[in-house]
């Protein structure tokens, strides 16, 4: 591409070539940079029984004798109500780590609890499951591992019909998964992936949310890329996840958020993103982004804004896949509406969630990097000025804005012509006055492209004391080469 344009002088051109190569490398790294960043928010969900929801005081720590007594009563009591109350008392006591420790050290306690979990008394089953759920909250892996005898039953119950019970089992499993690799190593051969794949077909929203939680914990395990994600990709889970993220009247935001994060973890692992693209992930995510922008415009938030972060990350990461670039992206992503949608979201982020601006800009960067079509969209939709207005917000934002502008400028003279004249030069002179090396560096990159394709820019630059702006940085190690290259071009034309 560079050879099509006449070089100013052999020496400078060579240096500039090298600098451009370095820029392209840096920007490629930036496009892929977010793959490692995973959301490390562990969510422990507690179903509050009505009496706790009303803030009533919870039972005290139980001693060994009490635990034994409650277990005995629950197992062998004659009165149904009595057995139930004993289990409820045990469950309340198990909210305390001390009681949990006492319970797991008591011989036969888990065996009794599992017996109750599989008994023919539905309410005892439910209370026993709630006891397990309390135990699953523990931050000690020993407690989680004490629950191992119950896991085959928790998984078996996932194919039952009682949606409340299934929900409880899923949250319990999710908690146990977080806490212990030993538990995960048992759950995989026990068939957790097929069990989840069957369960994801449930019509119950509560079940789907719980499933999303359990799955997201499984996907964040450190051994997930090698041991877990391959079998998940082999199952029908990805297709169902994408189905549950399809925009439309049936979209449930709570469910979609869970699975959007699950998708993010799978994509970050880079096990097989091409497969996800084959399943239509780009298309679904693109449409979801458009939907989000529409909802934001209608100022109906309805929980959709929580979807923004995972959708932005998933899209940005998938766009760096070789497959996409080879096939030129999918239809929706060449559609200029996606650019318009992003800017609508930028306005929303500015007011409500500023931390998402860099994420959105990163997506814009990945969209425009290899797409002349979308660069044209930016220009024809008059989005350069709104983009420039974001510059003063922060250094991170500045670097991303400048990188996007470089993507546009790099496409050639026709593009640079539309960037010039305009507010661009004065913005660049302002950014050159800053001290952040990255911001200044990216400004220099943009200047280089402008000087290359739009020679008139050099004159204007000189007239506005551009050389002095450059001089400030000529001793800076990381910037020296680029500063000198620009000085040469500016002085020698």
């Amino acid at each position: 591409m560079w050879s099509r344009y006449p070089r100013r002088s052999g020496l400078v051109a060579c240096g500039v070539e090298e600098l451009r190569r370095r820029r392209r490398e840096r920007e490629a790294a930036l496009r892929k940079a977010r793959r490692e960043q995973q959301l490390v928010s562990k969510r422990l969900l507690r179903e509050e029984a009505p009496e706790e929801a009303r803030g009533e005081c919870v039972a005290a720590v139980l001693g060994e004798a009490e635990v034994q007594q409650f277990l005995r009563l629950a197992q062998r009591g004659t009165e149904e109500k009595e057995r139930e109350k004993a289990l409820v008392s045990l469950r309340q006591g198990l909210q305390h780590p001390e009681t949990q420790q006492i319970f797991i050290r008591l011989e036969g306690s888990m065996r009794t609890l599992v017996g109750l979990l599989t008994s023919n008394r539905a309410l005892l089953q439910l209370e026993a499951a709630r006891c397990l759920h309390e135990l699953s909250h523990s931050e000690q892996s020993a407690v989680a591992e004490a629950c191992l005898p119950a896991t085959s039953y928790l998984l078996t119950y996932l194919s039952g019909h009682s949606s409340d019970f299934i929900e409880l089992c899923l949250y319990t499993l999710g908690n146990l998964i977080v806490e212990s690799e030993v538990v995960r190593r048992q759950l995989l051969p026990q068939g957790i992936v097929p069990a989840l794949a069957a369960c994801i077909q449930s019509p119950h929203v509560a079940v789907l949310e719980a499933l999303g939680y359990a799955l997201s914990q499984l996907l964040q395990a450190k051994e997930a890329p090698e041991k877990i994600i391959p079998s998940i990709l082999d199952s029908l889970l990805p297709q169902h996840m994408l189905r549950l993220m399809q925009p439309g009247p049936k979209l449930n935001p709570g469910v979609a958020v869970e699975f959007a994060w699950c998708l993010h973890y799978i994509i970050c692992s880079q096990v097989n993103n091409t497969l996800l693209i084959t399943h239509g992930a780009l298309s679904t995510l693109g449409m979801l982004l458009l939907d989000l922008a529409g909802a934001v415009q209608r100022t109906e938030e309805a929980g959709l804004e929580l979807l923004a972060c995972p959708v932005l990350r998933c899209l940005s990461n998938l766009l760096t896949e070789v497959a996409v670039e080879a096939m030129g992206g999918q239809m929706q992503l060449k559609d200029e509406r996606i650019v318009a949608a992003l800017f609508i979201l930028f306005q929303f982020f500015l007011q409500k969630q500023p931390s998402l601006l860099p994420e959105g800009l990163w997506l814009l960067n990945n969209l425009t990097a290899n797409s002349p079509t979308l660069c044209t969209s930016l220009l024809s939709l008059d989005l350069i000025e709104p983009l420039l207005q974001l510059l003063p917000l922060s250094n991170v934002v500045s670097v991303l804005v400048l990188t996007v502008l470089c993507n546009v400028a790099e496409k050639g003279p026709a593009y640079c012509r539309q960037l010039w004249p305009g507010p661009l030069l004065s913005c660049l002179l302002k950014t050159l006055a800053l001290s952040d090396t990255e911001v200044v560096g990216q400004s220099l990159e943009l200047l280089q492209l402008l000087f290359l394709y739009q020679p008139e820019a050099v004159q204007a630059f000189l007239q506005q004391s551009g050389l002095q702006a450059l001089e400030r940085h000529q001793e800076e190690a990381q910037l020296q080469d680029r500063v000198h290259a620009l000085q040469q071009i500016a002085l020698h034309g």
Partner: protein
Amino acid sequence: VAEEPERSRVPEFTCQVAGCCQVFAALEDYQHHYNMLHGNACSLCSRAFPSGHLLDAHILEWHDSLFQILAERQDMYQCLVEGCPERFKTSRDRKDHMVRFHLYPADFRFDKPKTNKGPALRGSDADPSAAALVDEGDMMEVCSDPAATPPAPTGERRTYSHRVPSTICFGQGASRGFKSTQKKNKHH
């Protein structure tokens, strides 16, 4: 005594399934009971299972004489873990597989070897692991009159499934009804 205002309280009523004597005072309790104990129950021996998958396996292995005949010639005992395609010659072999490959407990409650006695009796010829569970009674048994259990027919194939009838929906998805939506606390 703690009240539970979120549960829909109704006057006490008994489960309508023949032979079941359980009493309930809240719809959710009855819903859970029904799903767990009658949703996937064998109509021939009244054993209840947590899923249709396990019920199907039970009917095939316990009540289908054709199964027994075929089992003499080929591997008919399917692994009970959903998604696993393995089949075995005997239920013993299948149990070994589930224990060693799937890390299932050796006394998995829903993989009882077939006994010749009715549900109310605990025979001494039963598997030793089953005897250890005497204190809970046979798992998932509905309290039913043993006399009501008909013997398995020979040479006759019927459809045995006993799923939740469509007329019982427990108000799922219906906008009317007593159950209020429960809010959960989520900590992000």
